[in-house]
């Protein structure tokens, strides 16, 4: 019997008991749907991260003070006080692969405008920071190098700060107070959205000249980070090495000691984010797969019942000349058809769920053709795996006893 005929016969048999077949399929539908939606969320998040990292420019390096904890996550930086402005100057001077660098430090504070206030991050840096980070302005400009030299009280605000503090008022030229000091707003940054890598709101920030921050707000003269751009994406790896050896030298770190800083290449960060994203996606998919397994157990259960119910029928078929193989394929096909149809509906269901997630939660969901094909293959595998035992049982029936079965 060719595959088509076998499949058609299986569908007929399943259609004889539509309610039962539908309920059995439900397990697979939910399982596949959940996997598709979860993988979609995971991959969407991954893509988000990649896009944001790409938007930052592919040749950026992040030099942070403090050591990296095991596992390479971003925790722990900013712990030491050894990164200084002179380091940045040295980097610019002595690392040929480096194109530009901007110093950085930060603190948190309330920012006051009129009767409103808003708690946010205050970053201190220099004007080249905005170029390095590829961050355009929606209004105004950055503060100038002169502002830095004079430690002027000027500020650039992010979109979230603007929204929460100024509302409909135009912020340009207005005065805000940071730790009771007045600052004039000279620029408003364009919206960047949530950082997919760190999870924080990139627009919730106020930037002031580094000198102003260090002298008037924090009183600390060390840096928390230096933002560096390399001459090219290729050069970023060389730049990473150059900066590392330079700083180890300047900080007098002995060969057996760890760095008291970290240099993150954006390419590294992209890889890390990718890895983290894959792990998260796999985790989500695994959890969702549990329901797929439950669905498979449901199929096995129902097929066993079906085999028992149709004992007589199996006996008749064997008497007429069906081989064990014939009987086994018949029932196995029914199981596979159940799981494949369930899988197909599940894929549609998963896509619908993903659409709902995007609509209500705003997360980006990415459903790749690969995910769909994998889901289809998986549901077929579930059908084969869980249908095997009942099919075998059917094939092994003794025809004489089967014919006598009431």
């Amino acid at each position, binding site marked *: *019997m060719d595959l088509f005929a076998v499949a058609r016969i299986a569908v007929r048999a399943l259609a004889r008991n539509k309610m039962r077949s539908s309920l059995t399929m439900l397990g697979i539908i939910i399982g596949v749907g959940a996997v598709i939606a979860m993988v979609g969320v995971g991959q969407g998040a991954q893509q988000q991260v990649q896009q944001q990292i790409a938007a930052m420019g592919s040749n950026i390096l992040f030099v942070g003070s403090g050591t990296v904890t095991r596992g390479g996550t971003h925790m722990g930086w900013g712990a030491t006080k050894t990164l200084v402005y002179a380091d940045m100057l040295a980097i610019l001077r002595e690392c040929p692969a480096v194109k530009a660098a901007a110093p950085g430090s930060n603190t948190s504070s309330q920012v006051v405008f009129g009767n409103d206030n808003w708690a946010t991050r205050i970053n201190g840096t220099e004007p080249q920071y905005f170029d390095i980070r590829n961050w355009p302005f929606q209004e105004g400009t950055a503060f100038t190098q002169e502002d830095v030299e004079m430690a002027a009280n000027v500020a650039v605000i992010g979109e979230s700060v603007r929204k929460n503090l100024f509302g409909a008022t135009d912020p340009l030229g207005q005065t805000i107070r940071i730790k009771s000091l007045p600052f004039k707003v000279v620029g408003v940054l364009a919206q960047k959205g949530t950082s997919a890598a760190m999870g924080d709101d990139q627009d919730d920030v106020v930037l002031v000249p580094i000198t102003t921050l260090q002298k008037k707000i924090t009183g600390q003269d060390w840096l928390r980070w230096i933002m560096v751009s390399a001459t090219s994406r290729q050069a970023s790896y060389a730049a990473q090495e150059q900066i590392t050896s330079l700083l180890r030298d300047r900080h007098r770190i002995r060969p057996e000691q760890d760095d008291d800083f970290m240099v993150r290449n954006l390419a590294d960060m992209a890889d890390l984010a990718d890895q983290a994203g894959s792990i998260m996606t796999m985790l989500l998919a695994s959890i969702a797969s549990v329901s797929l397994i439950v669905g498979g157990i449901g199929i096995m259960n129902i097929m066993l019942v079906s085999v028992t119910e149709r004992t*007589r029928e199996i006996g008749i078929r*064997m008497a*007429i*000349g*069906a*081989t064990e*193989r*014939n009987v086994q394929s018949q029932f196995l096909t029914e199981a596979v058809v159940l799981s494949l149809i369930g899988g197909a509906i599940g894929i549609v269901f998963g896509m619908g769920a993903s659409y709902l997630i995007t609509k209500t939660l705003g997360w980006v969901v990415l459903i790749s053709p690969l995910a769909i094909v994998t889901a289809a293959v998986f549901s077929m595998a579930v059908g084969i795996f869980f249908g095997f035992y009942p099919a075998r049982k059917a094939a092994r029936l003794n025809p004489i006893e089967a014919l006598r079965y009431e």
Partner: protein
Amino acid sequence: MVTISQPAIDIAIPQPREATIRVLDLHKYYDLGETRVHALRGITMDISSGEFVAIMGASGSGKSTFMNILGCLDKPSSGRHFLDVTDVSGLGKDELAAIRNRKIGFVFQGFNLLSRTTALENVELPTLYAQVSKEEGGKRAREALDLVGLGDRSAHFPSQLSGGQQQRVAIARALVNKPSILLADEPTGNLDSRTSVEIMEILERLNNTGLTIVLVTHEHDISQFARRTIEFRDGRVRRDELVINRQTASQVLQNLPREED
């Protein structure tokens, strides 16, 4: 043991198909819990092509066991079983299945049709296992249904057919792959007397074309439509004789009064 040759009654039997059944010293044991049942105790018998044999006996006489072995549904514990010249006793499961599919046709007391399947599909069923194309299978099925007089009921479900009609569908199914032997286990057991005779008339017609028929029955009247009766008792053949003064089913049918509906 009496070896039976062709019956003396002169009926033209054109083209006898090759089906000789031969069993030699057949024994069959069953394990029922702790006891061992010796169901067949040395059966030796020949059935020639074109014969019409009725096997009789009480329950426990071994006749059903014997039929199961004849039908290649079961294997003897010892002894030989030949179909034509093939030693069937040594064959594997798949080969036996092929024989059941092509050489043997089964008819059961309980009809054993698939419910929720049309008559035509029921009759087609053996062709599905015979590697026959769908068109060929359908064609053969229709011919078989015509042969039993149910050509106009091919789309009916068993639940829509009377007992006699269901048995006729079962007979058509048994014939669809043009077997050389028809085995019938109490084919009239669930039917009224008139329908029983109608069924026997069909079997008779088939036997007249050369089909070898072996039938199990406990009704003496039915057994008299066959040409040879064999009686089983306690796992052995007790009697094996030709039917004398045989009345054909067609004759009896003509003489039966029409049933009042």
